[in-house]
């Protein structure tokens, strides 16, 4: 069974560090290869151009000045001005292209990640704090864009830059170039000794921050409970501990990450000094004053890209850590998806059949064991029985939120695992125990059931479940904005809205799972009427099949079929009258409840 993820448990990455993630991200980069190549060319041209400037300076010093040739000097100045202007334009082009590519990549990765999340099973959401999921879709994706656009280009460019400079240097003086290049092996040594520590450190930072954010997000959602139980102090301590460990991890990572820059700086200074020593003591006068000077500035220019590579490398480490998280989410298995040859479920008539269905949420415990039953179109079925007996599981299987481990479930003779999910769930009206309301206008929440519903249909649906009474009292009626988590609506009002949402979806099969537990009795009565109206088939055709899980006797009694679920199977079935006559589990339940009234 999947380990749940608590706020103070670091998520472990299953995949070892590899270039796999980067390779995979090429998929996103590839789409933009035209822009990327253009940007790359512009950038390369621009840096080639900027390399000509020291050459012009050298020329001025070595030729124009000794010759006192002002005309040539002006010409050189004009040339360098043009070079600068062109290189700026090229840089601008590159910046524009890369911003666009970067933003497009964010948009694409985020879109794909989000789309994948839509297909993930409940268990994915149930097993980890929501804050940890959120941070991947928003922050992490934001953080990878720069590396995947500018980072890649810069990386290639800097490498090219280095190559160019090496060529220029070699052209000028082979011996001096070798002096400069001697520093490279030292540098690699330094880098490769820092690298693993750095990766671990950044991963640690990301873990600790993610824990902190998860706890903060949960604290907001549970704030009322915290205040009721006056646990503010204790929570503050926990948060303090999390904040402190995030702080320490970040500090450590900062210390490690910042070793690279000074290392490059010192090595390059050493090389520079060495260049002068070698140039003056050994090679001079075989090389001119101008050449030593130019080599000096090339050697700086040689180390600069290496320094920048070090910085890119840093970002790269961060990005890889984020990419790992993003791809990990994208790799989460979709447990329930359309079969390859899935077809559209035709308009539901309402025959439902369970054939020998066995199911458990994990391998060890079976919630349903070889359950079989058949329900004809138009019947209303009440599922009753002790809590945890598997009533909700039955409706979850019927809506294909889970797949049965054995057996088949048929709707109108179609195996539900063979039809498309959209056509299946789109025709089911499912009212859950937990009625989640989205932020946005009241009408948008009702329209959520059927996106093309018009204003009149929305108001009609609200009237059917008597939600119109409280909606009319709100300041902007159907246009009233509701904040996250239903804002100031009471639980009962949320259920009514959720009900209207189901009604408007005009379902072929209606599933009510404790859907009215918080609605007051009078309203529930109205709602019942609304449901019967809906079930009766407004178009005059056959009624709709419905499955109802409820505790209230009045609701149960009126159903066409009552199934008593116990120990993973059906122990009794029949109408209210039949089951009462049987004097079994149902009778006992019913009479003991009547006693309490």
């Amino acid at each position, binding site marked *: *069974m999947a380990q*749940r993820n*608590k706020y103070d448990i670091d998520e472990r990455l299953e995949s070892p560090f590899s270039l796999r993630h980067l390779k995979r991200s090429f998929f996103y980069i590839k789409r933009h290869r035209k822009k990327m190549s253009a940007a790359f060319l512009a950038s390369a041209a621009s840096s080639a151009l900027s390399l000509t400037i020291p050459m*012009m300076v050298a020329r001025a010093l070595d030729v*124009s000045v000794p010759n006192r040739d002002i005309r040539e000097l*002006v010409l050189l*100045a004009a040339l360098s001005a043009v070079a600068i202007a062109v290189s*700026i*334009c090229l840089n*601008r082009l590159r910046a524009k292209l890369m911003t666009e590519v970067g*933003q497009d990549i964010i*948009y694409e990765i985020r879109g794909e990640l989000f*789309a994948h999340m*839509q297909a993930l099973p409940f268990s994915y959401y149930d*097993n980890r*704090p929501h804050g940890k999921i959120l941070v991947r*879709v*928003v922050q992490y994706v934001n953080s990878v864009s720069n590396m995947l656009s500018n980072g890649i280009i810069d990386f290639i460019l800097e490498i090219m830059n280095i190559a160019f400079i090496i060529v220029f240097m070699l052209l000028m003086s082979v011996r001096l170039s070798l002096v400069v290049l001697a520093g490279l092996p030292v540098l690699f040594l330094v880098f490769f000794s820092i690298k693993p520590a750095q990766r671990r450190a950044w991963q640690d930072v990301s873990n600790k921050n993610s824990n902190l954010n*998860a706890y903060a997000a949960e*604290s*907001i*959602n549970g704030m009322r409970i915290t205040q009721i*139980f006056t*646990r503010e102090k204790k929570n503050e301590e926990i948060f303090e501990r999390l*904040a402190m460990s995030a*702080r320490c991890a970040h500090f450590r990572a*900062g*210390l490690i990450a*910042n*070793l690279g820059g000074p290392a490059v700086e*010192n090595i390059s200074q050493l090389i520079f000094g060495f260049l002068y*020593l070698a140039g*003056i*003591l050994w090679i001079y006068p075989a090389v001119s004053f101008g050449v030593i*000077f130019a080599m*000096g500035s090339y050697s700086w220019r040689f180390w600069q890209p290496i320094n920048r590579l070090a910085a890119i490398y840093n970002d790269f480490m961060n990005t890889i850590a984020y990419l790992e998280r993003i791809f990990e989410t994208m790799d989460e298995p979709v447990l329930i998806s359309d079969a390859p040859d899935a077809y559209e479920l035709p308009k539901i008539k309402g025959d439902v059949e369970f054939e020998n269905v066995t199911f458990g949420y994990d391998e060890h*415990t079976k919630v349903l064991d070889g359950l079989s039953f058949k329900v004809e179109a138009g019947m209303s079925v009440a599922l009753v029985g002790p*809590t945890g007996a598997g009533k*909700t599981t039955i409706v979850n299987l019927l809506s294909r939120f889970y797949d049965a481990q054995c057996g088949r479930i048929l709707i109108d003779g179609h195996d539900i695992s063979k039809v498309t*999910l959209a056509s299946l*769930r789109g025709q*089911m009206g499912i009212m*859950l125990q*937990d009625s*989640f309301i989205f*932020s946005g206008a009241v009408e948008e929440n009702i329209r*959520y059931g059927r996106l093309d519903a018009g204003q009149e249909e929305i108001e009609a649906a609200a009237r059917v479940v008597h939600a119109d009474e409280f909606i009319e009292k709100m300041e902007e009626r159907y246009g009233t904005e509701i904040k996250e988590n239903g804002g100031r609506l009471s639980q009962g*009002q949320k259920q009514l809205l959720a009900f209207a949402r189901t009604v408007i979806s005009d379902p072929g099969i209606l599933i009510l799972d*404790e859907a009215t*537990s*918080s609605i*007051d009795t009078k309203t*529930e009565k109205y709602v019942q009427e609304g449901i019967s109206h809906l079930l009766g088939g407004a178009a005059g055709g056959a009624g709709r099949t419905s499955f109802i899980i409820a505790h209230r*006797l*009045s609701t149960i009694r*009126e159903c066409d079929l009552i199934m008593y679920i116990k120990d993973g199977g059906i122990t009794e079935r029949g109408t209210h009258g039949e089951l009462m006559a049987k004097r079994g589990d149902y009778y006992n339940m019913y009479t003991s409840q*009547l*006693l*309490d*009234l």
Partner: protein
Amino acid sequence: MAAFKWVWESLRGFRKRYLLCFFISMLVPMFVLINPTLQRALIDRVLGNGEIALLIPTVTAMCLVTLTRSLLNYASVALVESSSLGLVYNLRMKIYRHWQRQDMRFFRENTPGDLMTVMTSDIDMVRHNLVFVFRQIVSSALLFLGASVYYFAMNWRFALCMIALTPLIFLATYVYRGKVRGIYKELRRRLSKLNADAQENIEGNRVVKAFANEAFEIEKFNAKSDAFRVQNLGAQYIWLRFFPIIEGLSQSTAVTTLLFGGVFLINGTLTPGEFMAFNSLSWAVTEPLRQLGQLFNDLQRFFASASKIMSILEEKPSVENAEGAVVSGERFRGEIEFRDVSFSFGDNAVLRGVSFRVMPGETLALMGGTGSGKSLIANLISRFCDADSGEVLVDGRDVREWDLTTLRRNIGMTTQEVFLFSDTVDGNIAYGNFDMPEEEVRQCAETAAAQFVYDMPDGFATIVGERGVGLSGGQKQRIALARALAVRPPILILDDTTSAVDMETEKYIQERLENLEFTCTKLIIAQRISSVRKADCILLLEDGRVTESGTHEELLAARGSYYGLWRIQAGVDDGTEAMIRELQRKGEAG
């Protein structure tokens, strides 16, 4: 300016480190000037005059200078990391503490997504400015000034030529600043919307699937994602308009160096060594100017983030401890009284002059329509909001006079919408009494009919997810009830606690609640007759008023609304009513 003052305030405890780091950052540019000077000596004296003896000491000195400089740099990095992370820590704690003091209004008006954006992105932006931007501004300014002074001291004419164009860069940057103001605020807003949308989708994933609205969700999300992208691009496009001007001006120094340097070299007013020094230092003039735009950009974002954090921190809860609020360690007796209490949400009056009294140990039940103000009564007692008029008294004292903690310590409550934390079942039950021995946790669970926990994979050590979604509604309710019982409260408020629990279990719970080991006043809010029928008094709320009150039998006999409810719930026609009477008579006899 207020933002800077605020940052300074928040740096408390880390100010010295930050100042030291600032000091070092200012020292470092000075070092930058040393090496070019040495280089100049290298060229003029070693190359020009052939003083070869100077070569090795000079080169060694240059290396030492760099080493010292990078060590100083590293020290300043360590200092700035330590102090900025300290600030982040301070801010996080401050915001977290602030949240904990806020009332329901605050959490209604600031969505979780907004609050999380403040906690993450905004704080990060402040830190980014602290680490890079402020330092960069100061060190760039110093670098620029230092280099200029050095230039002027060496050769004022040449220096003048090089710096002549720089005022134009300031002008361009200033104009740019005006254009981007507001853009970043909007960017931040869109990010926060994106966050909120994703968060809701995650929370509501069941509903999304139930309606097979995945495609709609994706479309909605992509629209927000695109809005964010477009705004980001917009900000960047503005920058790109100014980029050629600023970049061109700053790089123009290379041309002036070449042209004027050459001319001055020819007419002998500049030595080759001086030229070298100028040339190798030209970046000290251009770099600061180049960065100006980006720095201002970041500064804008800093102001946007800082003002958001400040405005959140400035919000005052409407429910606060009064001055001289009464703190008491003694257990309350558990008396509750409402005297003519009224409350409204805006124009919508929810309670209109409600009065009742519950004596210690009694059970009061509240029934009423959806939105009739039942939960509000619970919130008034535990003071999550205050009445508009009238008085709410607990143990004979107005709740507004009690210290909030004292008051709430004496109340155990379950809320309509059950929220469980990502913690073990044990941790959830012991939430309000976290030192509680495991044995007592089990007892509470048993009282709340949460025996199902024993069948879970790790029993009481099983972690239940956020919002406890791994559990059924009834199971969540029972854990929430156990949590409320765990604090052994003198006042127990049960808001719709057993609505998703089956009747048999409810009956079991009721029996156990009647025989608690501690005396406890109970307030039960419910829709089911079975939940309220044993109460000492049942109040029926309609239109914000108490319309019926009495015991179950009294209310049935009165044949009013309560009787009507009873008939509906029992599904009563006259035949069944007779059957119920029969059964009940038998039950009492047996």
